[in-house]
């Protein structure tokens, strides 16, 4: 797959279709990859990588990149195409300046899940028929591939590319995912249990802003949490509840626009399952306004910014709260 | 436990003077009168209204003033807007003094001095000018070139006219950017005026003003034959702690709050251009 992508990227550079390629760059280890923009075939040959570890969603970078001179090639996994579309819909990405190739997605591997097995000193990771062969300075270890699948890929919602100019490989379908299972579990908890769950999770937040900064739905030029005039631009919690507010407010702000790409949870250094907050909103929107998938297209009206006479009444909040 | 510099003292504002449409000069005393602390010309203090903000300001009064400290403050952001709205009698928090100072007792002693200031840039130099006036015998010729956008924007205009221009031992050259009714003085930008005045190159220069003015003044001085080692300025960057620990006001390996704010241009030349 990597070879096919490199070949096509070099062709598009050579024939002038694009002047830059957005991809991933090799790192120090077998598993660390960095989003990067390539300008020459030589750079691509030297550093381009696409493997089980290239998880990062690149669509947010395209906001900036699509405003530069010339066209850029974007290699988008199915999940990334939803973010891309949503950003096009919000007039953040200039579509004409991006040439999109749809590429097969995951499941991707999360190195943290390998390390959680106590495996360390990792020098190489090979996927042999869905068994991971992990070479370490302490010897070779093996583990089933599926046990190392990243959280965001565990409940993949779609193998379908919702936008592309061309495809490498076959297109897939929207999947029947299990992504709301945990949300349902949380819904079935008592209010106190649910409160305790979130307080426990969010208490670990170190307010590094990685979730916000990586989020393709968080593209405000000046975030309310960075704006001194907002009165809530604190960098640390004044009390133990304020950290929770940061995440709750953020979830509200991206509600209806979050495509469930899972980047927030992927980047959290404290492993807080932030995506569950967003999924709760998605589930509620589906339930209250009918099925809606942010980023599935660039034209439909989003339920939360649209008015229909059969919209649910505000009283639904009270009714649900009483449950 | 010993005092911690981050825990401020309290001062009281005993006089407020509207200097220009957007600059006020605040007189600050300790609660029981006198000064909150001593300082040297060019040093700064952290002033704050708790809940509003804290900021670093140059102490504009001379250390030779034994009764009070003064701060000339331009209305610019949240804190300064609040300060401009307050009345006499308001208490503020104050900590310091912070930073180094113009070397009035060493390198500047016995020298002919040229002060070049633009707009609110006079604030830090006023401390030195009045220090030098009070110890006049210790210094050679003293010349001041000061300019602003208009006559109304000249800070401390009353003191300049009543005291500095009246002082036969110093030369004061004022200028404003554009002609204005009631102004028969020089018109033109400060850097050009300095060149026109063609000061002797044996003077030591202290310059403060907007970055663009400093840049062109320095270039003009060099054309006249001055070298970087003769020219001092004072810097301002974002500060929080005032003691070189919070990590934000650095230019290269130097902290403006601790190693500055006063720098000689040859020292600045050895640092990255990031200010």
């Amino acid at each position, binding site marked *: 797959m990597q070879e096919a992508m490199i070949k096509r990227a070099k062709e598009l550079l050579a024939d002038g279709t694009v002047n830059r390629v957005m991809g991933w760059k090799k*790192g120090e280890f077998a598993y*660390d*990859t*960095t989003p*990067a923009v390539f300008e020459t075939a030589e750079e691509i040959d030297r550093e381009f990588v696409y493997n089980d570890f290239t998880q*990062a969603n690149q669509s947010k970078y395209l906001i900036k990149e699509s405003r530069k001179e010339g066209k850029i090639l974007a290699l988008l996994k199915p999940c990334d195409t939803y973010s891309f579309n949503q950003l096009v819909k919000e007039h953040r990405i200039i579509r004409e300046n991006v040439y999109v190739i749809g590429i097969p997605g995951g499941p991707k591997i999360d190195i*943290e899940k390998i390390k*959680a097995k*106590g495996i*360390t*000193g990792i*020098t190489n990771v090979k996927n042999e028929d869905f068994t991971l062969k992990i070479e370490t*300075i302490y010897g070779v270890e093996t583990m089933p591939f599926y046990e190392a699948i990243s959280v965001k890929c565990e409940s993949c919602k779609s193998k379908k590319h919702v936008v592309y100019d061309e495809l490498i490989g076959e297109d897939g379908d929207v999947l029947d995912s299990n992504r709301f299972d945990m949300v349902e579990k949380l819904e079935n908890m008592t209010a106190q249990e649910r409160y305790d769950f979130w307080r426990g999770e969010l208490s670990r937040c*170190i*307010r*590094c*802003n*990685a979730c916000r*900064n*990586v989020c393709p739905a968080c593209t405000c030029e000046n975030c309310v949490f*960075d704006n*001194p005039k907002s009165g809530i631009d*604190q*960098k*640390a*919690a*004044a009390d133990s509840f304020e950290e929770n507010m940061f995440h709750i407010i953020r979830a509200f702000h991206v509600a209806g626009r979050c495509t469930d790409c899972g980047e927030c949870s992927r*980047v959290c*250094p404290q*492993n807080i399952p932030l995506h569950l907050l967003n999924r709760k909103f998605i589930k509620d929107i589906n339930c209250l306004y009918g099925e809606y998938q942010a980023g599935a297209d660039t034209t439909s009206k989003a339920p939360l910014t649209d008015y229909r006479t059969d919209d649910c009444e505000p009283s639904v909040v009270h009714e649900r709260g009483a449950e | *436990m*010993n005092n*911690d510099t*981050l*825990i401020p*003292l309290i001062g009281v504002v005993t006089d407020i003077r509207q200097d220009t449409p957007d600059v006020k000069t605040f007189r600050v005393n300790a609660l029981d009168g006198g000064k909150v602390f001593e300082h040297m010309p060019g040093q700064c203090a952290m002033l704050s209204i*708790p*809940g*509003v*903000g*804290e900021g670093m300001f140059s102490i504009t009064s001379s250390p030779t003033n034994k009764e009070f400290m003064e701060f000339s403050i331009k209305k*610019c*952001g949240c804190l300064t807007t609040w300060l401009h709205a*307050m009345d006499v009698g308001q208490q*503020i*928090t104050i900590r310091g003094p912070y930073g180094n100072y113009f070397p009035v007792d060493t390198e500047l002693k016995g020298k002919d001095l040229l002060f070049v200031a633009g707009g609110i840039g006079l604030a830090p130099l006023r401390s030195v000018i009045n220090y030098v006036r009070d110890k006049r015998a210790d210094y050679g010729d003293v010349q001041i070139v000061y300019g602003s956008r208009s006559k109304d924007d000249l800070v401390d205009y009353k003191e300049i006219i009543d005291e500095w221009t009246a002082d036969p031992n110093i030369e004061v050259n004022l200028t404003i950017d554009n002609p204005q009714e009631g102004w028969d003085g020089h018109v033109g930008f400060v850097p050009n005026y300095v060149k026109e005045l063609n000061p002797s190159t044996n003077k030591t220069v202290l310059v403060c003003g907007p970055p663009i003015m400093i840049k062109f003044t320095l270039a003009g001085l060099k054309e006249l034959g001055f070298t970087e080692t003769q020219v001092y300025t004072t810097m*301002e*960057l*974002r500060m*929080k*702690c005032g003691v070189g*620990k*919070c*990590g*934000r006001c650095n230019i*290269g*390996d130097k902290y403006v709050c601790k190693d500055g704010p006063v720098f000689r241009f040859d020292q600045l030349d*050895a640092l*990255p251009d*990031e200010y």
Partner: protein
Amino acid sequence: MLKISASNLNALFDRIAEKQTLYIPVDREPNVSEYKKYESGMTMSKALNTVRSAKDFFFPQTENLAEFKMSGKTIEVKDIRKENEDFVVFGVRACDARSFGILDKVFLSEPVDSFYKNRRDHGTIVTMACTRPAETCFCTTFGIDPTVPGGDVSVFFDGENYFFLDNTPKGEAFVASVSDLLENGDASKLAEVQENARNIMKKLPLAGLSTDSFGGERLMEHFNSDKWAELSESCFGCGTCTFVCPTCQCYDIRDFDTGNGIKRFRCWDSCMYSDFTKMAHGNSRNSQLERFRQRFMHKLVYFPANNDGEFGCVGCGRCLSKCPISMNIVKVMKALEDK
């Protein structure tokens, strides 16, 4: 050398916790550990290191500096400082132990930061020698020997017993306070364990990384390097590297209106943040390139320039594991070093 058997370790913890607060690394998920206040029955983590560094013990993420009562035109300052209680941090690795020395250079230099000093004076650091380093480890680059971890007391594990070596008067007092639980033991196996770990360090992927190309004298050259654009290109300006870093110590001071007075607090800040140097009239580091450059220049050039050549990094590898885009100090060093 004084020792305790692995099976008795919790008895030791219980004893320490009787007299003062004890913190030990505990798994919150398999092999994901964090320092927790010890409660009887807790098991010490076997993970190499904690996700967050140990700097929190002396420089917490947020702490109150003072309180103000505002009434009319008057302001009252309340000094809320209290003498800290004694505490013990057990299981600190060599890298984190070194980081305290780096933080000391900032906070204990004049004017001394009394908030930091208070905690430092009352904390006893019990370190743990490394036997199984990870691929992200590069402490030896900064002259750290992970098999001799330092702190007030060094602890060595030979597979069966924990051996104690006090390094400071505070450490001596600590060992004395638990000496009835310790017994004299044969430490002959330790040398072999240490030698083994040192050999592993030599085989690690980052073993060849060197600081030779860095230091205060290379300031202008590195600052003006054309490499920064590429290195910083994908950085999205979060503070993860800063906040997991054991040596990052930049802070912000903010006020919080409680409705019943003002609390002035200090909290971690990151030079990666866009408002770090923002003033009412402008910003001296407007681009992410400049902010990214600041962080690494500080560690590799500015800090050694001001601190007798000591670098502001201990090679713990946390930023390597946690950066969302896998950009880190190792990649910066490799890009900037003399080829």
